[in-house]
């Protein structure tokens, strides 16, 4: 190989950012480009509920100051959408029509909020909470003491619910099979957990038992702006409706690249995809588990960070398998507290 390697990393989440920094430490000469759709450098999405605690300056969410990227010689390319990856030519094609060549590519594009297809026609009436901009939009939209309808109720949504309750808002949870995602709990345990939530102040609606969520409607003038309508015809008003059905990997741009994808990018335990120059890390990848003989997702901040670091190590000479670092159990404690690794972000 002639000259320093060009490393391109897609995604500035926990995995991508960690990978960039580890890569820089291990390979001082290589060029590192970190691509993100966001207008901001890496910030902590787990912290986003803090917008309800009065933190409205995005600089308060940054993990590293902007100058850090320059010091580390990491090219940070924001507002950059990857439309496709030409694995043959080893080129990343960007939406603005630029072609970025790479020697190694790390896909760490993470997951985006899943919206079940049957609800897709109501997209315009739903909000999101996965970026600073979305969080601020929700914060601006929500009046003091306002009501938030959380559909599904994955752990990310439930974490937001805690903050919303703390800050004097009301939360209605439309429970269903996605509640507590990514945990799957036996029915008896589930009842207990829901009970804890109820005692925290969350209003629980058993959506599945009432014909499912039939539609989301705009509210009438003078009332809350949204209504959630269930299959049995009952309606619940809300100021903001947040779908919370877990994550699906953001892989659209990898389709057609030839890299093996099922739901996420399929990678070996050493995080290598089916293409020799491409690796993947974080919520975007399904890792082969020799133990389970299945491709598996590993969620949670600690796992994702560890994958980012491992990917960088394996890009620079190592060949180590991924070992989950986070226990995945969910339980309630003395009837009042829920313990989940997904709530333990430091």
């Amino acid at each position, binding site marked *: 190989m002639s000259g320093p390697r060009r490393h391109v990393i897609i995604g500035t989440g926990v995995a991508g950012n960690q990978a960039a920094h580890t890569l820089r430490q291990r390979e001082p000469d290589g060029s590192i480009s970190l691509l993100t759709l966001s*207008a*901001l*450098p890496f910030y902590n999405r787990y912290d986003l509920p803090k917008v309800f605690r009065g933190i409205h300056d*995005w600089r308060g969410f940054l993990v590293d100051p*902007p*100058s*850090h*990227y*320059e010091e580390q010689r990491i*090219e*940070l*390319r*924001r*507002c*950059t959408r990857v439309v496709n990856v030409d694995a043959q030519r080893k080129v990343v094609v*960007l*939406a*603005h*029509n*630029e*072609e*970025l*060549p790479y020697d190694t590519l790390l896909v760490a594009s993470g997951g985006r909020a899943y919206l079940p297809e049957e609800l897709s026609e109501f997209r315009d009436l739903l909000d999101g909470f996965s970026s600073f*901009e979305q969080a*601020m*939009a929700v914060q601006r939209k929500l009046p003091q003491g306002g009501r938030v309808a959380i559909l599904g109720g994955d752990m990310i949504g439930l974490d937001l619910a805690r903050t919303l309750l703390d800050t004097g808002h009301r939360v209605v949870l439309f429970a269903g099979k996605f509640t507590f995602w990514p945990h799957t709990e036996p029915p008896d345990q589930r009842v207990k957990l829901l009970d804890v939530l109820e005692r925290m102040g969350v209003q629980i609606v058993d959506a599945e038992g009432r014909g499912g969520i039939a539609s989301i409607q705009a509210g009438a003038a003078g009332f809350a702006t949204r209504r959630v309508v269930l299959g049995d015809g009952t309606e619940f008003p809300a100021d903001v409706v947040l779908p919370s059905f877990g994550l699906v990997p953001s892989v659209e741009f990898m389709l057609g690249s030839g890299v093996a994808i099922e739901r996420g990018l399929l990678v070996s335990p050493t995080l290598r995809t089916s293409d020799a120059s491409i690796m993947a890390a974080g919520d975007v990848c399904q890792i082969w588990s020799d133990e389970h003989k299945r491709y598996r997702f590993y969620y949670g901040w600690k796992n994702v960070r560890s994958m980012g670091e491992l990917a960088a190590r394996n890009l620079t000479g190592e060949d180590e398998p991924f070992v989950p670092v986070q226990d995945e159990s969910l339980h309630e404690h003395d009837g009042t507290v829920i313990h989940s690794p997904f709530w333990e972000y430091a």
Partner: protein
Amino acid sequence: MRTDVQIAICGSAGEGTIAAGDILRSALAAAGYRIISFDAYPAEIRGFGKCVARLRATTEQVYSLKEKSDVLVCLNDEYGIPQVGEVRDFGAVVYEAKSITTLAAGAHLSAHLRPAQIPYPVAIRELSERATGATRSRNLVALGFLAGLYGLGVDPFLRIIDAKFKNKGAIAEPNRKAFVAGQQAGSQAFKLDLVSFGQPSAGQKSTILSGNAAVVQGCLDAGIDTFFGYPITPATTIMERLAVEMPRRAKRLVQTEDEISAIAAVIGAGYTGARAATATSGPGLALMSEMLGLGTMAEVPCVIFVSQRGGPSTGIPTKTEQSDLNMAIYGSPGDAPRIVIAPTNVEGCYRCAGKAFEMAERYQSPVIVLLDLYLSNRYETVVMPAAPPFEVDGDRLASKKELGPGYRRFALTKDGVSPRALPGMVGGMHVVTGLEHNEMGRVNEQPDNHEAMSRKRHDKLLHALHHPDFTQVKRFGDEGRVAIGLLAWGSTFGECLAAMFRARTEGVRCAAMKVVMMSPFPVEAVAEFIDQCDVVLVPELNYQGQFAHLVQAQTGRTVRRYNRVIGAPMPVEEIQAQMRALLAGDERKAA
């Protein structure tokens, strides 16, 4: 809240970059901000050259543009990329989100943003096409985006767009639509930068004027009667504005076939008692130099506005320079003294223009008002006086007693100014000639006469050094003895002032003096200033140090020079660097 926002718009000449800057400037001025702005553009009309329109909108008085812009709008990636560096941290960069050609790695602007700059990719081209069916209104889309992003009032923009394009038929409506489309996109964009506009200060009603527009206003307020000119960058806009305004006042403007014809006509008109002027640049002044000698010899009042540009010869017509000082003062055959004044800011352009007519008439001489491209084209908000501060008729006309058979047109008087008889006046008939003549105006080649007349033509102008209500020189900054003094003329003075104020905030005792009167030279005041400074720095935009030469020759004192010919205003930080080097006694660093 204090507002101090500098916006740069960068694109090619054909993309309407300058027009966008015009509209933005006018709209912000209409909203009540103080503005200082200056555009850089190339010679090609629309061609492919790069342009940058820059403006600084403030609530407090400022003297120059900032080194760092708060916002950069790029209409063209290729040209925009080198400009990205001028945007401060947490400032905004607005750029085209999509290229229609496939770009190599790094060819898109987004590749050049620093991590602390906030990107705003906007589908400028597409928004224009959607709104208007054509890509031409990209500039208005970008402008609309700024208005939307920063919550600027839409009405001033629309009014100005309507006014600007009203005579251009079919393009007014598309431009309006494009602006609105951009404005909607901007108001929907999530604002992440830390740039904001506060309420403009409610104060005196100010007007936004370019240097050339201020010249025009000065001419009109001084009662200009006739104007003859020939188009030449960067003076053309003086003629263009006068062409609109003078006919409204029943005054006459003629576009002549060349500069020789223009100055000749001006002298002809001046001879009849009319207030007459022309405007040109270096190459035109060169063509006028023979006729200017006639003006001096025949003692005809006339005003010549000269806006300097890069030279020599055709030079760099669209870049600023201060290299015609020597020609303005000396450029004529023979000993041909004349008055040369050089304003330092837009308001000064107004005052100098008006005062030039007063002086021309009072001292019966050509008066050159020396501007440069940076001054001609830069815009500032100016508080206009309630009534024109100019004397509208200062002619020293011959009295009944002086007229008659013994009338001496060139009488040697105490102040050197002779009584004029204008064609049409009974008893004043005389012949004016470019040949040396006696008091009666008759040809006379005798040495005594030639010496007397030469002295008369020279000495009468010295009175201009005390011309009333006119600032020949002015000192700013610390009083008394100072560690360093800046001595400057023309447009460069603004940057010197900014550098001086900054040096003072760093604890340096310093002062700056502007010199407006270039010929005759205010020797005493300048010499006194130099004597009070430990060291004097003369920054100017020419290679030879023409002003420094003049100062040294006139005062017999030594000054330090700093010369740049970069076609752009003197960077404030360079002046500061020179000052620091001089103060530190570092001879190597000081140029």
